[in-house]
């Protein structure tokens, strides 16, 4: 494998309703693709690039694909939209780069969106890795409180949080037969109910000792567990 850090390629994808999404890609063409979807108030760069996921995935023979959610990072479209539209944005990114099926790697809100995508177009997912997923959808107030505590709250994010809906819902189970893994830090107080949510649905769970919602995402054990699931699934066709 190359000893150099994989070159990141930047592009923009315009959705059907005119939102411009900032997209990052790495890895050789023809590899099974991992669509990495970041959490609320984060970015593709902060959630996946700075944390070492690009190298981990590309070294495992996987392609890296990520985008900034609307109202986040380089995706400026601020119109608040719901979970279904945000999940469709991920599928639109796959369409734009010509990928029919991909592994969905999501963290927090990005994981929740993976479940939404699996409801809408289950055939397009090769596997689903759900990192730091709350077992109950957070309310907009909870999200804005978390962003405020992290010093990240903006008017755009506040509007985005309201657009997600009232919260309090329970994330749907993934479709039967879709390889799924839940990964969560055992000190994660944002997704403290992830384990009980996953156990009730008989999903495989990997807990990360001592990790919080903020620092579980870079954990080597998270990467290894995710890659094991992805590489055990047969290729894109």
């Amino acid at each position: 494998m190359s000893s150099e850090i994989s070159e990141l390629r930047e592009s923009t994808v315009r959705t059907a309703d005119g939102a411009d999404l900032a997209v990052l890609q790495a890895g050789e063409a023809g590899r099974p693709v991992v669509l990495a979807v970041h959490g609320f108030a984060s970015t593709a760069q902060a959630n996946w690039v700075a944390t070492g996921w690009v190298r981990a995935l590309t070294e495992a023979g996987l392609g890296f694909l990520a985008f900034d959610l609307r109202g986040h990072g380089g995706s400026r479209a601020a119109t608040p939209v719901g979970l279904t539209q945000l999940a469709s944005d991920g599928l639109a990114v796959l369409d734009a780069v010509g990928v029919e099926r991909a592994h969905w790697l999501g963290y927090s809100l990005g994981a929740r969106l993976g479940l939404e995508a699996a409801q809408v177009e289950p055939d397009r997912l090769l596997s689903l890795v759900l990192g730091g997923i709350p077992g109950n959808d957070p309310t907009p107030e909870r999200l804005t409180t978390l962003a405020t505590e992290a010093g990240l709250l903006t008017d755009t994010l506040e509007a985005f949080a309201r657009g997600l809906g009232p919260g309090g819902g329970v994330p749907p189970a993934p479709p039967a037969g879709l390889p799924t893994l839940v990964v969560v830090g055992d000190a994660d107080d944002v997704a403290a109910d992830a384990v009980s949510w996953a156990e009730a649905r008989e999903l495989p769970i990997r807990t990360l000792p001592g990790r919080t919602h903020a620092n579980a995402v870079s954990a080597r054990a998270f990467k290894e567990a995710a890659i094991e699931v992805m590489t055990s699934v047969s290729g894109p066709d």
Partner: protein
Amino acid sequence: MAERSFPLPDLGEGLIDATILEWLVTPGEYVERNAPLVELETTKSAIEIPSPMSVVKELHAAEGEVLEVGRPLVTFEVPDDQAGIVGTVPSGEEPPRRVKLSLPDD
């Protein structure tokens, strides 16, 4: 063999220190250049730093410890012919230019 000190690099965004989350190498280990070296947590986020050199001599902070930017992070062992004319390099030198940090808002 000579030794070369690698300090905790400037992490941008006005950050002055970081907590060692997990070492991804051990003393004596040969590390592929740019392979993961250490996981850090700042007040902003968790990050993974790649290794600028290959042979790890000593780690200067324990997991869970807070380290200030510029303080020694790792000492590497380098062949004498790569360590400069006098055979050693002062600690506290600038990080090698090819270390690539991928941080938000770069």
